[in-house]
């Protein structure tokens, strides 16, 4: 059984349309983020998040009424499966440093007072002081940048040419930006789990890029007479079946994560679902065209440059 017989698509020839498409997505993503602002999870923004498990089906309106007096503007919504009797309460105001618990305690007490007929069986909470949140936000950005840089260096060393590393890293950055755009557009919060997913998908995207790069390296050694664009294009076609099967199966298993993984993993699952799609796309239409453009430019500049991978 085979998915495609002898694929022979002209990926590089169409590259400029796809680059334009990517730029469009990145630009719209940035616009959405600028207009709407990135919604940070409680671990980054600081504040209080409670998950309250009620004995009976909770009435969100009554809860909102009870909580509003204590913490005006708190976000209240059903959490997870509606039959699970769980409600999420998110208080945006920073918890006072001297008494981190105060807002959470206030809400629990207010609920016990005016919604006592439906007692809380169990409550989970996440309370983050303002300092930690800001520190963590910085750390996340740095880790992403450094992680990409480290992968860039590894690839540059393995393929004996900085451009290979740059191309893979640019593709990874491209994936992150597009994912962030999608996350903001679909109103997902940026939580620690989502950051973990973003860093993982960079790894996955770079991984995917390397498989094709590797094929290019092998072909460059075997077919010294062929022009680089042809080698690049053939390498993409030769690895196309693998790309589709591997990324297809991983896509479906993270889709399972998104669909069945429960409330906590929903953001993670969504990021991976988008990320695997974008990561596959960026190998074919971003990373390889960058390599092609770079060596093509060198050749046009006069020197009979030859890819060194």
């Amino acid at each position, binding site marked *: 059984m*085979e998915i495609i017989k002898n694929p022979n698509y002209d990926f590089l020839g169409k590259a400029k349309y796809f680059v334009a498409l990517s730029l469009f997505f990145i630009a719209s993503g940035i616009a959405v983020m600028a207009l709407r602002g990135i919604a940070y999870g409680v671990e980054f923004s600081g504040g209080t998040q409670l998950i309250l498990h009620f004995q009976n089906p909770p009435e969100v309106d009554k809860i909102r009424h009870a909580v509003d007096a204590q913490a005006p503007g708190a976000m209240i919504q059903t959490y997870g499966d509606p039959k699970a009797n769980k409600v999420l309460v998110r208080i945006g105001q920073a918890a006072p440093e001297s008494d981190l618990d105060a807002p959470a305690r206030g809400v629990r007490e207010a609920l016990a007072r005016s919604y006592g007929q439906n007692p809380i069986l169990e409550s989970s909470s996440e309370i983050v002081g303002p300092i*930690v949140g800001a520190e963590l936000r910085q750390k996340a950005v740095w880790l992403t940048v*450094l*992680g990409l840089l*480290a992968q860039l260096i590894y690839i540059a060393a393995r393929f004996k040419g900085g451009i290979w590393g740059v191309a893979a890293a640019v593709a990874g950055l491209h994936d992150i930006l597009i994912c962030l755009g999608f996350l903001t557009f679909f109103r997902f919060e940026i939580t*620690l789990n989502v950051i973990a997913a973003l860093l993982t998908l960079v790894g*996955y995207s770079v*991984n995917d890029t390397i498989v094709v790069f590797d094929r290019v390296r092998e072909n460059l050694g075997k077919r010294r007479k062929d022009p680089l664009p042809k080698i690049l294009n053939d390498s993409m076609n030769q690895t196309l079946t693998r790309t589709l099967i591997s990324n297809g199966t*991983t896509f479906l298993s993270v889709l399972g994560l998104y669909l069945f993984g*429960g409330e906590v993993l929903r953001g993670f699952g969504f990021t991976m679902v988008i990320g695997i799609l974008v990561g596959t796309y960026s190998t074919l239409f971003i990373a390889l065209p960058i390599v092609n453009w770079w060596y093509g430019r060198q050749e046009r500049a006069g020197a009979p440059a030859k890819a060194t991978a």
Partner: protein
Amino acid sequence: MPPALQNPITLWLLLTAALAGLVYAFMRPELRWKAIGYGSFLLACAVAVWPPYERDGVPGKIHLGLDLRGGIHLVLQVVLEDALNATVDDAVTTARDQATRKGIQFGAVQRVSPTSFSVEGTEPARVKDMRDLLRDFFGRSYEVREAGEGKFTVQMTDLYARQVKEQTVQEAIRTLERRVNALGVAEPVIAATGNRGDQILVQLPGVTDVEQAKRIIKTTAQLSLRLVENSAASPETLLQGVGGKVPDNMEMMSGPSDTPGQPTYFLLRKEAMITGRDLKSARVGVDESNRPQINFALNALATDKFSRETARSIGRQLAIVLDGTVYSAPVIQSKLGSENRITGRFTTQEADELSKILKAGALPATLKYLQQLTVGASLGRDSIRAGVTAAAAGMAFIVIFMLVYYRLSGLNAVVALAANLLILLAAMAYTNATLTLPGIAGVILTIGVGVDTNVLVFERIREELRNGKTVRVAIQNGFDRVLITIIDTHATAIIAALFLFTFGTGPIKGFAVTLVIGLVANVFASYFVSRFLFEWVLGKRHVESLSI
């Protein structure tokens, strides 16, 4: 499973032996050796993992993270300024005592910042003596500067300040460990965290009473027994006798009186007769009218000192001070010995907690909460269920796909995948790594990457077969050519995971650990085990076609 195989040491030996056997088999070219080596390694892994989760009272081998089993996760900040202040305060007392002993006249000695103190108004004739004294006593860890007119500034060196800070955090961690042990929490995590090294991470899996845990953790528990100089119903009356101002060597504190709701104010010596460090033990008891009290015993050295000093102070009040509050101030009736008690208006629970905290020792500095995460047990159970369902769904889909698409070779991939998972879980049990919810996601991703390795190899073999190679050569070429790709892809993925690991916070760290172990296991299972299976099945037979 025989109990001997559940013993951690036996297991450790077993796995180490299996690992050694594996390495040996790996280097031998003979398939027989590989069969024995790989087989016994996987068997040892299975033994190490069993039972994965708690069953019939036998604890599970896979440690579940807070997010899966419920519990508390706290990030505390050690207020290092406290410790620096205390250190400089000690130095101030020493300077004052020594100058007095040498008969040097001086004006004021006081702390001017968390890391420095000043000496003012030294009598002009003895400035040199004062300089020598300060240099002798503090020269190693402080810098002594002269400002003229008998004034000195003594500034802690950066190195010493850093040492004090590090020691404070270490001591705080040790104290917290003792307190958490007194709480009886299994598998707690208490460790320094954060960039500046002044934060402590406390994870208490399975604990549900957040308030109690936080009280026990946060109480500073600075106990001291000090002589009372004077007491009165209001601060004003108290200070009348000493010229309206608290003297340098004394402190004012409030405490209970006979009329409830009406505090008494005490003027206490700053110097303590006994501190929490002198305690040998502390436990709950009851007083004559059956009210809870805390009994404590002093160690031998402190008992001598305490007997001596109480003998000298019969008839005076001795204040028992805990964290800046006077609990009681009984009159010393006779010479006191090792066994003593603290009475006050405790509930039994308060007395119980306090005695545990006192036994565990005082914190060297105040702690501030920066972050708090509590997960209810039922939320954890929901998460496990969801995570396992997702993993099983992903796995089932992949197995079916591989079998349909690659037929018999797909079976090879499925075996490799199972081996990959088994090794991953065994490594987690072996290294006491924690499985978190994002960790389950990491397992799913590992399955994805594992399949990729198989797909890479299989597609390559198909390509070789299409190019007219024989089955045996195709398989050999397939595996040989793909090895370098696999090394590169796994190395970059591990680089990405290592960065996640430095993120430090519980669940994400668990994810990174799972990912790294999974990636390493994958190279072994999907490449080497899979290759072995091909070669083993092929044997020495002449094969015309391959089911791929």
